C-alpha cells in the first residue's frame, strides 16, 4: 500500500488547507501519511511493518476511506481551480484574438495605402501609411507575446488551454472512477483500484499546479 500522495497533499495544503486539516483531525492515526513533502526513504512500508510488529495494523477499510476522502477532496479542488483557470485563459485568448484582428486590419490598411501612393508626392500620406504598418506589426508582436506569455518550452496560450481542458476531463473521469470504485467494486479489489486513481490524481495534480503557476 504505497500510493503517491505528495502532490495531492501539497496541492490541498496550498489551496484547501482547512480540508486537509479536517482530514488530519479525522484520521489522527494516519497523520504521518498526510504530511506535506516526501519521506526521503520508504516510510509507508516501514509504518506497516511497525504496526504489524505492534500487532495493531490499522484496518484496511479505514485506510481506504482516508485515501478515498483525500482523493475526493483533491479532485474537487482541482476541478474548481481548473474552472477558474478556464475562465481566465478564455478571456486571455479572446483578448489576444481581438487585438490580433485589429492589428491585421491596421497592417492591411497600411500596406494598401503604401501601394496606392506609389508615384504620388504627398509625403504625409507616405508617413501615415508607414506608421500604420509599423503599428500593426507591433500589435502582432504584442499578440504573440500574449499568446505565448510566460509559458516556457514553446507553449502558447491555446496549447495551454488544450492541456487544461485535457486535465480537466481527466480529473472528471477520475472523479467518476472513484465513485464507481467505492460503490461497485468489491472490497478486495477496491484498494488496487483506489491506488491507481490516487497515483493518477497525484500526477495530474502536479500538472494542474504547473498550469496554475503559469496562469497566475
Amino acid at each position, binding site marked *: 500500500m504505497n500510493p*503517491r500522495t*505528495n*502532490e495531492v*497533499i*501539497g*496541492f490541498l*495544503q*496550498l489551496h484547501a488547507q482547512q480540508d486537509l486539516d479536517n482530514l488530519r483531525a479525522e484520521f489522527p492515526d494516519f497523520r504521518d501519511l498526510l*504530511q*506535506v*513533502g*516526501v*519521506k*526521503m*526513504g*520508504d*516510510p509507508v512500508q*516501514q509504518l506497516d*511493518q*511497525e504496526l504489524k*510488529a505492534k500487532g495493531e495494523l490499522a484496518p484496511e477499510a479505514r485506510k481506504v476511506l482516508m485515501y478515498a476522502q483525500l482523493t475526493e477532496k483533491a479532485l474537487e479542488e482541482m476541478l474548481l481551480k481548473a474552472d477558474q483557470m478556464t475562465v481566465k485563459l478564455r478571456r486571455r485568448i479572446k483578448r489576444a484574438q481581438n487585438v490580433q484582428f485589429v492589428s491585421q486590419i491596421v497592417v492591411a490598411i497600411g500596406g494598401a495605402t503604401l501601394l496606392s501612393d506609389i508615384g504620388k508626392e504627398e509625403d504625409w500620406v507616405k508617413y501615415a501609411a508607414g506608421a500604420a504598418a509599423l503599428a500593426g506589426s507591433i500589435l502582432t508582436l504584442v499578440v504573440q507575446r500574449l499568446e505565448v506569455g510566460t509559458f516556457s518550452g514553446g507553449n502558447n496560450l491555446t496549447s495551454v488551454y488544450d492541456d487544461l481542458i485535457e486535465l480537466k476531463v481527466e480529473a472528471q473521469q477520475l472523479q467518476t472512477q472513484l465513485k464507481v470504485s467505492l460503490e461497485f467494486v468489491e472490497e478486495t479489489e477496491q484498494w488496487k483500484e483506489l491506488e491507481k486513481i490516487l*497515483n493518477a490524481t*497525484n*500526477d495530474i495534480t*502536479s500538472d494542474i*499546479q*504547473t498550469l496554475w503557476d503559469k496562469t497566475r
Partner: protein
Amino acid sequence: MKRLILFLSLTFLLALPSFSQYAAVRIWIQSARRSATVYKGFKIPQSTLTVTQKRLPNLSKRPSSYSDDVSKLRPKRAYRIWSILDEPRNISKLNDEWLKTINTPASSKNYVSSTRDRIIAARKAHQPAYLSYLKYSTERTTAFQKIFTKTPSTPVGQPITSERHVEIARALVKMQDDMTQYHRLTYVLGQRPPTLKNPPPWYLQESNKSIQTFYRFALEKGLKGDDLTNALKTEVADLQKMYAAYKEKIKVLPTTASKGTFSNLKILSFQEQYGLPETWLLDKTTRAFIDHKYLQLQHAAENYLDLAYQLAKSRSLGEAFELGEPQNLQRFFAAYLEDGKSIDQAIQKITTDAHTFQKEVVYWQEQIDLLDYLNIQQLQSQHNLPKSGVYDFDTQSLIESQKAQIGESLRKVGIRLPDPADQIRFYKQYSQRGDIPLKESILLDQEAGYWFTPQGQKLQQKAFIDLIDETRAPIQTVQVPESKLFVQFSASNPRALETQLETVSQQLSRTYLPEENMILNLVKDRATERMIKSSFARNQIKFSLNPSASVAKLKKQLAKSPRKTVFVVGHVEEGKFVTYHKGQKIFEVSIDELMQVGKDLKLNIFPFGCNSSMQNQAQVGTTALLNSYADTQKLIEGIKSSKDLGTALQKFAGDEFELIVNQETFRNLGYAEYKIVKRALAEGGADAVIGGLILWSLIDQEDEEKENR
C-alpha cells in the same frame, strides 16, 4: 532681792539640764537592775537542758530488748525515734496550744521540776486539753497496733506497753531506710501521693514529714507487719528501677549539659532545652517526653540498623544493638549527636540515612532480580560466597562483576546501552535462546530483518548495520554534549583523537558567510520546491529534474558554486539519491560518487536523506527518516538563524535526529578568502583599465601638442 531672784532663777535654769540628766541616769540604772534579775532567771533552763542531754546515754541502759536495734543507731536518730514513740514525753510536739499553757513557768522552781511533774500539774490544771491528747494518743496507739501487729498482743484501744514500743521501734528501724528512699524517689519522680480521703485526726496532727509519709503509705496499702515492710521494699525497688531507667534514657538523648554526672541540674537543662516545665524533677511530663523521644529514636535506629545490617555496612553495630541496651543505642546515637543538634534533627538524619539504605537495598534486590536469582541466598550459594544472607561486599562485587561482563559482551556486538538494567534486560532476551551466543543471536535477528540501534532498540529497517556488522569496523563516535550531533573518529590513541576532535570542533564553530551553504534539491515535489524557492532561493543550486537530467549536468551546476558546502536533499535508496516523477525514476546518482565529485570540485557534500549515514562509505549523514518538506525547512531555518555550522546542525537535530559527521565533512575550503581575492582582482582590473585610459589620454594629449608645434 530682785537681783537674787534673778540669780537664783538663772542658777535654776542652768542646773535644770543636770537634774534631768541625773533623773535619766537613775531611770536607766533601775531598768538595768530589772534586766539583771530577768537574766538570772534565764540561767535556770540551761541546767534543764543539761539534764536532758544527760539522758541520751541512758538509752543504752534501757531494757535489753531495746538495745538490739535501737542501740545500733546513732544516738540522735535513736532518740528521735524514741521521742516520737514515747508519747507522754513528746506532748510538746503534738499539741501546741496545750504546750503554751504548760510551758508558762509559775516560778523558776517549778520550771526545773521534772516533765512528769509538770504534766501531772498540767493535767490537773488543764483537764480538757489532756483528755483531748489522750483521745489522740489512743487513736494513734490503735493505728500503731493496727499497722504493726498481725496478731495483736495488746488489745486495740489500750495503751501500748513498753514491749510493744520495742516491737514498733524495731519495725520502724527496719523500714526507716526504705521509707527515706521511698520518700526521696517519689519526690524525684514527681509522684506526689494522693490526698487521703478520710484521714484520721492523728495523721492530720502529725507534723513530722517522714512519719506522715510512712503513715500514708501504710494506710494506702492497707497492710501491716512484715507484709507492709515487704511491700515498701518492693515499691522502693520498682521506683529505683524506674529512676535508673530514666537516668539511662536521658543519657542517650542529647542535652546541652550532656557531659558529666546525672543530676537535677542536668534534668533542668534538658527541660529548658525542650521547653518542658522546669521542675528539676523527673516528673510525669518529663518522663512522658523522654519515653516518646526515646521510642522514636529506638524505632529510627532499629530501622536504620536493620537496613544497614542488610547491607552489611555496620554489622557490629547491628549486633550490639540487638542486645537492646540503652548504652548501645547511646553509642549508635553518638555518631549523630553534634553540638546544638536537637533530637528531632538527629532522628531526621537517621531516617534519611535509613531511606538511603532502603534505596540501596532495593537497588541490589533489583539487580538480583535482573540477574535471575530468586534471592540473595541463592546467589551466594551458587557462587560459593559466605552465606551471610545480606548484601555484603562480596555479594555486591559479584553482582557488579556480572553486570560488567554482560555490558562487555553487549559492547562487543555494538550495543551501547548506558543503563545496566537495560543491558541485563537485553542480555536476558537473548540468553533465553539456549546455547546460541549473544552475538550469533543478534545476527540471526538481523537476517530475519530486524536491526538494532546502539541503544538496543529493535528497528523494522536496516539501521546501524555498520555498527554491528563484523566485516567492517564499527564506527567510533563522540557525542557533542547536549546535542544529537555525533563526531566520527578513527584515532586509536587519545592524543590523535584529541587532534581530530579539535579539528572538527574548529570547523563547526567557524563563522560562515550567508551564501556559503547551499541546498541541492533532488526531490521532485512541488511543495518542497516551492518552500526552498521562497525561503532559500539565493542558496539553491539550480538543477532541472527532468528525464534529460544527468550526473554530468549536475557536475556542471555544482562547479558554479566553488568552495561551498552543499546539503543534498534527496530520496535515498541503496546508496543512491533517486528522483521519481509520476512513479518513474528520472534521475539517480550514487552518494559516494557525489561526494567524490564534491572533493574534486572543492565542495563539501552532506547527504541529507533518510538514514543517509548508512548509505555511504564515509558513514556521514543522518540516522533517521526525514521528510523533504518539514525537515528541509528546519535545516534551512537552522542555517539562516545561526552563525556557524555546529549551531545550525544542533538546531536542526534537536532531540529528534542524530547526525554523524567527520573531519572531512565540513572542511574549511576557504570560501571567504576566495571571495576576497576575486573581488580584489576585479577591483584591481578596473583600476588598471582606468589608469590605462588616463595614461592613454595624457599620451594622446602630448602627441597632439607635438603635432600643433
